[in-house]
C-alpha cells in the first residue's frame, strides 16, 4: 500500500480524509493492525508546545518622511538587529529589555505584536544623503508595518535531554528551577506527540513542508541549526537525545497568542513557547510503524545540570512514560518530575490541526528537498589560527 500527497489532498477536498492525532493512532494501530491502519488512515497530526529559544521575527517598518537608515533599533526598549537594509530588523526572542531586564524581552515584543498591542519603536542613524533622518520615535502595531514573519532558526527538537541537580544548592537553568540533592527532574518533549519523533528518518517532513506555526500556516524552511541526524537511534528509529531540528517560517500577522507565549526562566532569561503542529501523511505501512510510537518506547538521558561543562555527567536513560508518571528513581531515590513542554497544549494543537485538515482548510505538501540525513555536529574549541 502506498498513498501520495495528491491522493490525500483530493480526499481533503472531498471531505473524505481520515485524520487521527499521534495519540489516537497508537490504540488504532494496536486494535486494527498495521495493514488496516495504513489503509484506513490518511494523515496523523503531531504537535509540540515548548520553549524554543532560537526564534525571532523579521520586521519591515516602512519608510518615514524624511527617511532613515536605521542602525540601532529598539522595540519597547528591546534591541533588534538592524544590520540589514534601511528599515528591516530582526527581533530575537531571547534579547532582553534595556530597562526591564529579565521581565521583558524579544519574546514579549513578538507576543505583544501578535496580540495587536502598540509597540514603541525608537531608532537612530548617522544619516546619509539619501536617508537624512537621524532619529525616530513612534508607535507601531502589526497592522501599521509591512512584512512581519517569524523565522526561527531552530525549533521542534526531535528529542531533548532531562535535567537534575546533584549539588547542594538550588540552580536556575533553561530547564527550570532545579532543587538541590536531586530534588527534581525536568524534561522537555511532547514524546509520542512530537513531530520529529513520529517521522524519525524525515521521510515526509522536509524543506517546504506546510505546518501549523503558532496558529498560522507556516513552512519548514530549512533544517534547523544544530541539526544532528546522526545521533544514535533505537531500533524504532528514535534518538535518545538531541538530534534533528527544524528551521521554520510563518506570517506573524496570522498568529495567535494562544499558541505563542513569552516566558521568563528566573536566573536564566527570556524565551518563547511556540506551538508547532506537523501533519504526517500515511504514505505506506512503514509509516504506521513509526507513527504508532508510544511514550514508553521513547527514551531520553538525564544529565546533571549542576556541572557547568559541555559534557555533563549522565544519570542514565529513562522513557517518557516514566517521566510523565510524575516520579522516577535515580540511584534508588524517588524523585519528582515535571515537564517544561506542555503536553496539554500539544494535544490541543494536534486536534486543531486535525480539524483544519478535516474541514478542508489545511492541505498537505510534498517537500521540495529532504532534510539532510547526515550532518556533522561541531563543537567550538578555543584554537589559535595555526591550530585550525
Amino acid at each position: 500500500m502506498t498513498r501520495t500527497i495528491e491522493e490525500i489532498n483530493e480526499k481533503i477536498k472531498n471531505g473524505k480524509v481520515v485524520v487521527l492525532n499521534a495519540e489516537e493512532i497508537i490504540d488504532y494501530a494496536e486494535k486494527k493492525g498495521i495493514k488496516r491502519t495504513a489503509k484506513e488512515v490518511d494523515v496523523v497530526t503531531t504537535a509540540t508546545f515548548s520553549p524554543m529559544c532560537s526564534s525571532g521575527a523579521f520586521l519591515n517598518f516602512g519608510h518615514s518622511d524624511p527617511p532613515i537608515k536605521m542602525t540601532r533599533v529598539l522595540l519597547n526598549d528591546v534591541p533588534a538587529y538592524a544590520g540589514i537594509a534601511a528599515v528591516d530588523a530582526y527581533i530575537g526572542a531571547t534579547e532582553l529589555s534595556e530597562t526591564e531586564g529579565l521581565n521583558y524581552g524579544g519574546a514579549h515584543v513578538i507576543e505583544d505584536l501578535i496580540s495587536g498591542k502598540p509597540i514603541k519603536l525608537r531608532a537612530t542613524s548617522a544619516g546619509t544623503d539619501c536617508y537624512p533622518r537621524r532619529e525616530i520615535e513612534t508607535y507601531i502595531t502589526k497592522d501599521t508595518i509591512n512584512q512581519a514573519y517569524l523565522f526561527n532558526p531552530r525549533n521542534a527538537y526531535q528529542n531533548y535531554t532531562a535535567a537534575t541537580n546533584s549539588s547542594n544548592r538550588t540552580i536556575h537553568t533553561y530547564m527550570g528551577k532545579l532543587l538541590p540533592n536531586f530534588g527534581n527532574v525536568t524534561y522537555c518533549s511532547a514524546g509520542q506527540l512530537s513531530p520529529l519523533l513520529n517521522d524519525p528518518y524525515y521521510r515526509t517532513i522536509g524543506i517546504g513542508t506546510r505546518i501549523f506555526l503558532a496558529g498560522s500556516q507556516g513552512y519548514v524552511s530549512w533544517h534547523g541549526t544544530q541539526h544532528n541526524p546522526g545521533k544514535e537511534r533505537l531500533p524504532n528509529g528514535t534518538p535518545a537525545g538531541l538530534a534533528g531540528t527544524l528551521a521554520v517560517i510563518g506570517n506573524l500577522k496570522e498568529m495567535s497568542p494562544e499558541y505563542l507565549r513569552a516566558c521568563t526562566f528566573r536566573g536564566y532569561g527570556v524565551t518563547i513557547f511556540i506551538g508547532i503542529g506537523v501533519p504526517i501523511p500515511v504514505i505506506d505501512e512503514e509509516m504506521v510503524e513509526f507513527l504508532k510510537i508510544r511514550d514508553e518506547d521513547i527514551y531520553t538521558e538525564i544529565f546533571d545540570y549542576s556541572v557547568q561543562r559541555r559534557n555533563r555527567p549522565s544519570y542514565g536513560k529513562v522513557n517518557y512514560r516514566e517521566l510523565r508518571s510524575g516520579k522516577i528513581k535515580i540511584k534508588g531515590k524517588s524523585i519528582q518530575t515535571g515537564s517544561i513542554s506542555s503536553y496539554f497544549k500539544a494535544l490541543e494543537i494536534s486536534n486543531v490541526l486535525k480539524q483544519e485538515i478535516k474541514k478542508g482548510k489545511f492541505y498537505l505538501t510534498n517537500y521540495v528537498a529532504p532534510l539532510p540525513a547526515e550532518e556533522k555536529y561541531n563543537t567550538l574549541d578555543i584554537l589559535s589560527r595555526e591550530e585550525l
Partner: protein
Amino acid sequence: MVRRKLVLSFPENIVTSPITYKLVKEFNLEFNILRAEITPDMEGKMLIELRGDKALIDDAIKYLTDTGVSVQEAAKDIIISKNKCIDCGICTSICITQALTLDSSSFKLKFNKDKCILCELCLDCCPVSAIKVHI
C-alpha cells in the same frame, strides 16, 4: 481564646520535637500540626494551628523565633491564574506535597489547596508567572 495558622520553617540543625512539646506544656497552647514536610534542601516545614490565649501565642512565637525557627503568618493563599497557566507542569516537580499535579487524563494542571503547606517553593519556577501568593 484565639486561633492562628502559622508556617514554621526549621533549619536542618533544629530538632522539632522538644519545641512542639514546649509549646504545649509551657505556653499552654492547643497545637495542631496540619501538614509537615522536609524540603529537598533539608529544611523542615510545618503548617500549624495554635489555639489559646492571645498573649501566650505571641510569647510562643517569640520563643520560636529565638530558637531559630522562622515563623510566617499563614493567612495567605497560593493562587494559580487559569488565564496565564499553559499547563506545562514545571511546578509539579517542585511541589513536594503534590498539591500541584497534572491530571493524568487531561494533562491540565490541578491545584489541591488542602495539600499546600505554603512553602512558596513554586513561586519563582513558573515561566509565565501564573503562580502568585495572595495575602
